[in-house]
């Protein structure tokens, strides 16, 4: 037998209902049940081994980096839980067949249910910590789906969300705890971990680990103060409650306590936290249960209370208490599942679950009533029923503890109070529903449910009785095996008999029954007392808390992310300043000295440049003037490049600058002509100016340091290899088209993309065109001054010739494809300027974006050409030829590349300008002069 099959069969089973849904509810339910039933059979087949104390383990590697193995084991505890999960699961499948109506998505429901079943099996069978957590979270996920099955219902949505949030948070804590455990033990194998209890308990991290793991367990098991999600999860269809909230999901929490009992228990901290949590949950749950008018609400709080009881037992740190806990897990699962199912039947048949209107059902559904009453009695801890046995053990164990010192007596007393409350709410369940007069206005006329809907309840109640009467015979071996697994040690002696003689626990039971009955009898006073306190709806509170957090997050977010680019830019620059400026504090500039004294030209240039820059800023409100100043700056920068031995740069900067200015002028027409300065607060000016100055200082300082220090760079290589390796004497150009041709390819790609992007920006743009200029003067009449047109036309061939000249000499002298392209483009722009877009578009039929494409393609192909010669991309080739008349000349692949650059530049520049110009084809209203 393969252990993997146990969770694997239901896993496959998730799909079964989806495919069988259309065959009808009977077929669907039957088909769905098949695989879990097989799984159950497999579990049962392993019983002999398990009862012999043999632990079966199987594993497969999965993600070693995470120490996540696909690893399962089957010990007593796992066996017990598998039985509950599969057994009760099968009953719930049967029950749900009748519970859900024809109209509902039965397939989806079963699918979720099986998904949940798989997840639960995974949890209880995992022998790898991470895998355990994996399935643990899956239970939260699938229970979310189940609770929210009626998602159109607000309560269902909110309940499911709350359940997910709380159990999810617990899951996160658990993950942290498990990782810490794994790290501490050095293994994520559960078997290894279980044997390393001492390492963990003695570790300094023990309190943290304990809190994290308990966080997982308590949230899942709805322990106080995390209990509030469970009642709201009752918005789920009742089969879900019967399954999740009695036998399985909420038990996952106590399962975790049981699983890690050998590792984490037996310390004072454990005792304090677990016992007190359990105790308060026990009391609180039982007390509130008493006041719930909703049938399922009562059961939910009773569940909370019983989970508290189990937790309390685990907390007591005695072996017998742990055994009692395991026993109560079984018992509670059985009677609570049957009670939920009964409640579901009542709800189903009456159309309501409100005990204030449901009365006297004994008359209408005697069989169901009997079953429910037996189960309720078990819940109350009445002898002859299973609930009584574990409660007796519980009372007994509360007496055997002393960690609270002189206050230790409180625990048994409070336990008895809890017992009394349980009796009271059980009584209410029985009396208020089945007796207490006639039903009030309920939507349906109640009668017995369909035959097979009752079967699951009958089976479960039968178990209650059988276990209650013949405990040793029915659950003895199972309990032994499970307890052994929990304790991870040989079992102490204990007796599972119905009668232990008259002892203190029996007295406590008696007191509980009497007190509980009295309490119920005087319930009206109690209800009146309770009515003084406002009822706190956890859902509303939770909702309000989450909403409150979201609202304040929204406010904070709006304050921080205020939509001001100014602020974002300021932050970016400030951040950059801090990053670049901080290291400079330790820069010692004294070792840096000037090498060249400045001459007159340089000084004048500097003055002009500074003047131009400052004037640009000062005039930035009057944009046209600022542009003029900026264009001056551009020219001076170009001249500076020429002066500082960079002719190529000078040419490029100059041509780019002119095209840019033209572009800005074009744009300026459509933008406000002046910036409104009165918007800016003086304090902002000071702030911005300070930042700008600081950044400027940092940049200047770095620049000075770089200029005055010797640099050992790779550039000598370029100077040495330019002619021999690249075939050109203009080293800058050879770098561009050869050594770093890849950069240039990228650069023209940028240009091409920008043009395409601009084309997109311009598409469908409608702009406000001022009919007067900024001083409210109407525009001049003449669109295209004649002499400009004439002169531009005659300059065009000349400009093209010059661009050809610049292009061809680029490899050896200043120039190259880029500058030539810009010169051509500028010459054509001049034509646009002189004649207008319309005139040009009639005459120039070139598709500029095709031109970009061709340019890029040529550049790319010139690079790919080298593949034919078994060289890497962009490897250049050049050679010298001679022809009769022409003489010797050079041909180089770099020139083809440069041609690509040339075409791309022209295409991109003109695509931008020509389309920009098209915006204005709409005629402006000519103003009267």
């Amino acid at each position, binding site marked *: 037998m393969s252990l993997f099959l146990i969770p694997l069969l239901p896993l496959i089973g998730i799909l079964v209902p989806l495919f069988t849904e259309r065959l009808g509810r009977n077929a669907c339910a039957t088909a769905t049940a098949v695989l879990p039933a097989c799984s159950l059979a497999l579990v049962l087949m392993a019983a002999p081994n398990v009862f012999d104390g043999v632990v079966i383990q199987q594993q497969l590697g999965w993600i070693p980096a995470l120490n*996540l193995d696909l690893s399962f084991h089957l010990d007593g505890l796992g066996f017990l839980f598998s039985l509950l999960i599969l057994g009760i699961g099968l009953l719930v499948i049967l029950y749900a067949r009748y519970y859900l109506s024809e109209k509902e998505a039965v397939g989806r429901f079963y699918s979720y249910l099986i998904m949940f079943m798989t997840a639960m099996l995974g949890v209880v069978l995992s022998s790898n910590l991470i895998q355990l957590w994996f399935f643990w979270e899956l239970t939260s996920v699938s229970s979310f789906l189940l609770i929210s099955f009626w998602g159109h219902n607000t309560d269902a949505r909110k309940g499911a969300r709350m359940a997910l949030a709380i159990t999810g948070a617990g899951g996160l804590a658990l993950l*942290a705890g498990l990782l810490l455990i794994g790290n501490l033990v050095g293994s994520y194998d559960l078997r290894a971990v279980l044997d390393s209890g001492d390492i963990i308990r003695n570790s300094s991290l023990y309190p943290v680990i304990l809190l994290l793991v308990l966080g997982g367990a308590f949230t899942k098991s709805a322990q106080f103060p995390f209990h509030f999600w469970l009642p709201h999860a009752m918005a789920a269809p009742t089969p879900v409650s019967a399954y999740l909230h009695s036998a399985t999901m909420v038990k996952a929490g106590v399962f975790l306590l049981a699983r890690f009992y050998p590792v984490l228990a037996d310390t004072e901290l454990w005792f304090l936290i677990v016992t007190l949590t359990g105790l308060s949950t026990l009391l609180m749950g039982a007390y509130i249960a008493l006041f719930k008018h909703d049938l399922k609400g009562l059961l939910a709080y009773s569940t909370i209370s019983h989970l508290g009881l189990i937790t309390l037992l685990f907390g007591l740190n005695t072996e017998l208490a742990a055994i009692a806990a395991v026993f109560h897990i079984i018992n509670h699962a059985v009677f609570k599942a049957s009670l939920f199912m009964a409640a579901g039947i009542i709800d189903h048949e009456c159309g309501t679950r409100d005990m204030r209107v449901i009365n006297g059902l004994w008359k209408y559904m005697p069989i169901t009533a009997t079953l429910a009453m037996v189960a309720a009695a078990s819940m109350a801890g009445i002898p002859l029923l299973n609930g009584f046995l574990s409660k007796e053990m519980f009372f007994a164990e509360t007496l055997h503890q002393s960690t609270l010192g002189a206050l230790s007596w409180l625990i048994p007393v409070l336990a008895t109070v809890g017992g009394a409350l349980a009796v009271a709410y059980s009584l209410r369940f029985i009396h208020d529903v089945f007796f207490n007069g006639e039903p009030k206005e309920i939507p349906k006329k109640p009668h017995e449910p369909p035959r097979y809907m009752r079967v699951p309840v009958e089976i479960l109640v039968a178990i209650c009785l059988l276990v209650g009467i013949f405990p040793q015979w029915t659950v003895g071996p199972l309990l032994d095996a499970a307890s052994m697994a929990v304790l991870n040690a040989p079992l102490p002696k204990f007796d599972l008999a119905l009668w232990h003689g008259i002892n203190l626990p029996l007295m406590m039971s008696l007191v509980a029954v009497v007190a509980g009955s009295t309490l119920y009898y005087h319930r009206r006073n109690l209800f009146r007392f309770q009515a003084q306190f406002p009822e706190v709806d956890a859902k509303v509170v939770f909702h309000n808390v989450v909403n409150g957090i979201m609202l304040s997050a929204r406010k904070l977010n709006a304050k921080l992310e205020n939509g001001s680019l100014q602020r974002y830019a300021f932050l*970016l620059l*400030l951040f950059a300043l801090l990053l*670049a400026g901080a290291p400079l504090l330790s820069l010692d500039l004294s070792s840096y000295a000037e090498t060249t004294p400045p001459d007159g030209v340089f000084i004048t240039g500097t003055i002009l440049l500074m003047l131009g820059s400052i004037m640009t800023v000062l005039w930035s409100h009057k944009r046209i003037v600022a542009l003029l100043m900026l264009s001056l700056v551009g020219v001076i920068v170009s001249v500076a490049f020429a002066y500082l031995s960079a002719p190529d740069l000078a040419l490029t900067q100059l041509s780019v600058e002119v095209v840019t200015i033209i572009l800005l002028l074009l744009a300026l027409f459509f933008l406000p002509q002046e910036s409104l300065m009165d918007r800016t607060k003086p304090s902002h000016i000071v702030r911005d100016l300070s930042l700008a100055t600081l950044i400027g200082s940092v940049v200047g300082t*770095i620049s000075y340091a770089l200029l005055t220090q010797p640099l050992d760079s790779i550039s000598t290589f370029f100077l040495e290899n330019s002619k021999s390796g690249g075939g050109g004497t203009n080293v800058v150009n050879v770098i561009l088209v050869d050594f770093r041709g890849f950069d240039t390819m990228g650069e023209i790609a940028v240009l091409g993309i920008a043009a395409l992007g601009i*084309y997109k920006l311009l598409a469908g743009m409608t702009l406000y065109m001022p009919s007067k200029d900024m001083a409210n003067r109407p525009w001049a009449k003449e669109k295209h001054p004649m002499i400009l047109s004439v002169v531009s036309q005659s300059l065009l061939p000349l400009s093209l010739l010059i661009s050809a000249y610049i292009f061809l000499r680029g490899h050896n002298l200043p120039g190259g494809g880029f500058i030539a392209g810009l010169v051509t483009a500028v010459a054509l722009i001049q034509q646009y300027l002189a004649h207008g877009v319309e005139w040009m578009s009639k005459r120039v039929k070139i598709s500029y*974006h095709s031109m970009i494409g061709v340019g*890029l393609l040529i550049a790319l192909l010139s690079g790919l050409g080298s593949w034919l010669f078994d060289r*890497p991309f962009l490897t250049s080739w050049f050679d010298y030829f001679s022809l009769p008349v022409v003489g010797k000349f050079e041909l180089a692949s770099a020139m083809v590349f440069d041609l690509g650059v040339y075409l791309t530049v022209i295409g991109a520049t003109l695509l931008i300008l020509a389309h920009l110009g098209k915006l204005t084809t709409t005629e402006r209203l000519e103003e009267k002069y």
Partner: protein
Amino acid sequence: MKLVDHIAVLPVLLPFLAAILLILPPLQGRIQWQRSFAIAANLLLLIISVWLLVTINNQGIQVYALGNWQAPFGISLVADTMAALMLLLTSVLGLSAHLYACAGDDARGSFFHPLFMFQLMGINGAFLTGDAFNMFVFFEILLIASYALMIHGGGKQRTQANIHYVFLNLIGSTLFLFALGTLYGTLGTLNFADMADRVAYLPTEQLPLAKAGGLLLLAIFGLKAALLPLQFWLPRTYSAATPAVAALFAIMTKVGIYSIWRIHGVIFGEQAGELANMAQAWLWPLAFLTLAMGCIGVLASQSLRLLVANLVIISVGTLLMAVAINTEQTTAAALYYLIHSTLVAAALFLIAGIVQQLRGKAEDRFVTARKIAKPAFIGTCFFIAALTVIGMPPFSGFVGKALLLKSTIDQPQMAWFWGAILIAGLISLVTLARAGTTLFWRSQGNQVTSESTPALQIVGVVILLACFPLLVAFGGPVTELTQQAAAQLYQGITLTAGAM
């Protein structure tokens, strides 16, 4: 040279060629042809990425000397495992986003397909390059393409968001050049390996300069990655973009993170002498705050797209915290998390797009609206993606998160890191549960929206969603690769190869 010898340059050249052909006749202006061609190119790119990964696995790191000029003089491309993983991630992302767009979004403006290809070219180049200035160039390619793609479809919101995005990045580009100038001026070289080599032997008086330059780069990468306080552009930009574009953008923040690994993890990494790990001190608190800001954003989001955009910020914060912790194990874990978080963000953007289509006027805002006609499919998609992003089993999110937690277990920053990640997970859980239940279940009246979802959109989403279980099922091999990548990064194998 066989084609396999050129494999490192193919991920750049293929999209470039495709983009060029897409703007030329006969493809130009024929939307159906363009679609088929672009998808074919994407598929080819995916194949090449896989091939590259296999090649690196078999033959080691691939170094490609462009123009046959050896490093450090020429530009070389260095394809190590990390780069190859990023390329593979990009191609999966590209393919699914592109398929989604082919359902009709691509026709809502011009040049979508070529721009998309250019974008891929830029991203791939940024991942592959081994040269600082070339990195700048590829950054600019991917940026300019993203500027153009972002406004695809037009409209007020996009313009507004694009203005922020473009101008901030333009400032960033300017800073990038300042940084490059400073680094070239002190180190005298641009090749990563050579730079790393020279950083170690820098004279003391030049250390502050190199440090200033290096840290300035952090600002630029931080801007790309959306590190606080540079993250403000992200939510609006990503949420305003067309779904397919937003999905592709999911990789863009990761380019920033990848670059921090490359530059600050390697050039200024362990062996950098006095400058070793200089970025980490800055990175740690800021990454933490980024994550916090992401959480605030997630809580504040009132539409699915904004929510997803803020989730991206959370993932960035998480990753950068991991980067700041700076161990081999953390890096391996972070790489896995990066792959997963990128895919899931993309998936969520696509899903948000579909939701927006389906809900009529309510779009993807968290308000009550008419019922979605067939909520099951898209709801399931959302549910899967949400589980993944929260980090819940059975999808890849939990692996990423658990790997990160596990890898930091013995680090001094552990408590903060764990706290941050776990709380962020909880916040995502709460908000996504709310979002999902509102979008798919809360409805008003009995009217049902009539729009249906085109098949290609579904295909796009499904491809991404399929990655999540696969990343878990094949978690073993994948984590092996991420560990190999981290090892190459930390043992300087890439450097040695790049300096050849």
